[in-house]
């Protein structure tokens, strides 16, 4: 009897690498050996710099996915921020202009949160509608063309500055990943997000403030989107309605490639880390090998589906078991 009572803390305190971690390591080794100039320090730094915006935005997406939702409006929201920043910086100066941009993004995330939490819209519909609305709004403000900013050193610092020898975007990405990790695994709010994402009805029955958790979850995620938007604006030094139209899809893809199951209630900063690393390394290797961009997209698409299939425990790669006898007999009965 006493054997039963000893708590098995099997998964606690032991570092286990996610399957996606191994994939990332293998890619790193393979590309270093086979792709010329890949392993050069300058190139690796370049990869990290290019990946950092996606990593920060994916941190926000990760939070939404843990809540059991999806956020499609982040790309459109970042584009609007870039236009707002370019318009306000000449009047208010760089810090205040960037702050206004950040507030716009966070405000949009808050509104999405209100729809989802208090009006029971699905996040898919709420954020899809917001995405289309924002795209229209941004084009109306900018008139369809990129608006150039005066590329002062201050304006460009977020994208090109360095802190302690580390590029600023990379440092911010690392901080974001750490922050998201602490939030999800060690904070009370992160625990509430897990509960709500895992089973909303049960969370209500257990007395969890479900609506507030949804609303603030969206808003905090908006904070990460805002940071990504600021770095992007600084990088392109212009306001562009077409800044990152695919950001939402790429962040969801990053989480999926990183091994996350998108059903809600579960998620880890490592999913973002490995997913983004895999995407960034493949893109970089493709550039170094002079592969045309359609080929890059073909590869990326294949890898998304392939890695998710490989990481799903019960998936049947060959599709034979999709209609198991059990399911068929069930369908049989219900059609009677």
């Amino acid at each position: 009897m006493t054997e039963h009572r000893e708590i098995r803390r099997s998964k606690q305190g032991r570092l286990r690498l996610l399957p996606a971690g191994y994939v990332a390591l293998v890619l790193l080794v393979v590309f270093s050996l086979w792709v010329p100039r890949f392993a050069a320090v300058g190139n690796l730094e370049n990869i990290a710099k290019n990946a950092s915006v996606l990593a920060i935005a994916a941190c926000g997406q990760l939070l939404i996915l843990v809540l059991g939702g999806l956020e499609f409006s982040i790309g459109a929201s970042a584009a609007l921020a870039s236009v707002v920043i370019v318009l306000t910086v000449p009047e208010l100066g760089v810090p205040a202009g960037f702050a206004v941009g950040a507030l716009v993004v966070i405000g949009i995330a808050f509104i999405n949160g209100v729809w989802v939490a208090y009006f029971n819209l699905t996040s898919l519909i709420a954020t899809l509608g917001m995405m289309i609305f924002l795209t229209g709004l941004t084009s109306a403000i900018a008139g369809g063309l990129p608006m150039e900013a005066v590329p002062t050193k201050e304006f460009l610092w977020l994208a090109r500055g360095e802190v302690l020898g580390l590029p600023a975007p990379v440092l911010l990405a690392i901080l974001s990943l750490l922050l998201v990790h602490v939030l999800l695994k060690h904070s009370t709010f992160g625990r509430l997000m897990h509960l709500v994402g895992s089973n909303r009805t049960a969370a209500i029955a257990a007395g969890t403030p479900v609506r507030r958790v949804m609303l603030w979850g969206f808003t905090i995620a908006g904070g990460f989107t805002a940071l990504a938007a600021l770095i992007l604006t600084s990088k392109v030094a212009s306001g562009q309605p077409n800044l990152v139209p695919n950001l939402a899809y790429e962040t969801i893809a990053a989480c999926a490639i990183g091994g996350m199951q998108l059903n809600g209630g579960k998620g880890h900063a490592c999913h973002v880390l490995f997913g983004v690393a895999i995407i960034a390394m493949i893109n970089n290797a493709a550039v170094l090998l002079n592969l045309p961009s359609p080929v890059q997209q073909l590869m990326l698409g294949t890898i998304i589906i392939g890695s998710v299939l490989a990481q799903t425990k019960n998936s049947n790669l060959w599709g034979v078991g999709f209609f198991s006898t059990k399911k068929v007999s069930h369908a049989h009965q219900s059609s009677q």
Partner: protein
Amino acid sequence: MKKINTKPLLKAESIAKRYGATNALIDANLKVHPGRVHVLLGENGAGKSTLLKTLVAAVKQTSGRITFEGEAFQAKNVQEAMACGVVPVYQHLSLFPNLSVHENLSAFALAEREMQNVRRCLIEVEQAKASLLSVGLSVPLDTLVGSLSIGERQLVEIARAVGQNCKLLILDEPTSALTSTETDKLFSIVRDLCAQGTAVLFVSHKMDEVAEIADDVSVLCDGRTVVDCVQYSDTNESELLEAMLNAPVTSFKRQLPVHSNEIVLRAEGLKVSRNSNVSTLHAKKGEIVGLAGLVGSGALSIAEALAGARQISDGRITINDVLLMPGDRAEATKKGVGYVPGDRQTHGLFPILPALTNASASLTKQLDRFGFLKKNLEIETFEPWMEKLKLLPFDFELPATQFSGGNQQKIIVARNVALPHLSVLVLLEPTRGVDVRARQFIHDTIVEAAQSGATVIIASTDLDEVLSLSHRTYVIKDHCVCAQLTEGATRQCFIDALFSQSERAVA
């Protein structure tokens, strides 16, 4: 005494069905005569559904034989059974809501012709109209089924069965979702069908329906037929109820702790649904109060309301003279109201999260320090409870789905008994689908919670559970309190109370 003269259309003799280690049916018998309504009665879990499934060949019985029209019934699957004229209408409607009435009526024909040409597989308009007429339904054939009321849909389903040259119509709890006028209409159609010679097998657990519709009655209890095809005129309600509830008494009498006289929970003028009567109830500190009722009596709804998990139509609930906001679980939890929901899977568990997280779901406030989780406190809080409840496997990191039903229930009970300042603990069906040992541990924990000063409300359709655990039991009928039983009441007291109209104490 009038004898049934005709030979039975369908006869099932000593049917047994075993699923793994559980015996769903042990010795079930059934005789259904043409042109008569045969009501099959039984509590939840008595084996009614399993028996039905064997009759329509959806499952194969482990032993026993079924004869249909005097010959051995040889259908191998539901389609063949229906071709023989045995047509089931299930509790969960099996219509296609996005298709028209006509298309739905044609579904069987379509299935038989093995998908040649969808257009040609619609049955003739005349035929469709005729079968609708036979159930007294007058809607255009192109109406979408999804736009019909539940009652109308049921009629469409019966019409579909009638169109199938149906000899035995099986209705599985058909009235559970119907209004009283819809029920009346259904009954008159059932009688019409019988007059035309169709046999009807009507499964129910509602006694008042039996009186209205039954020609013959059988009662199943724990997998055995305890009343085998008796004419309804030869029996009466209380006899049938006794047979239905006559499970062997397994629980021993436990010593309940003494409770104080201070009233903690009060519900005044409580109406859980618009049409129900008003009920008033109270519970004292340390008292275990049962809410007992048959399935569908509303005992569970009242308990949900007391836990703050349900909106109410009228009335007020107070805890220690503080008003409880109806339907606000977050507020109720703050006031120390624990709630073990009746449906563990949808309302209780966080399936992919670890056991410990599941257990501490109501305790996040207490585990918080400056926004961070006190994980050590979390383990320290729940280790003793899990030990007391004998959680198996004793692994706090295992996802909740990987525990058995009994252990999942232990986790949810632990979540609630660990609440600080637990003042009221409301449990719905605390041991449904739970094995005997887990049941024991859960009951012990409930008694212990009462001993340490919590007011406990147990709502259950398991009579033994309520009667053996409660200091006092409210008998619930039609969504309101109809009587009160004191400690030590028996099943007989409960049955008597169900039939007495005025509220009175039965010792």
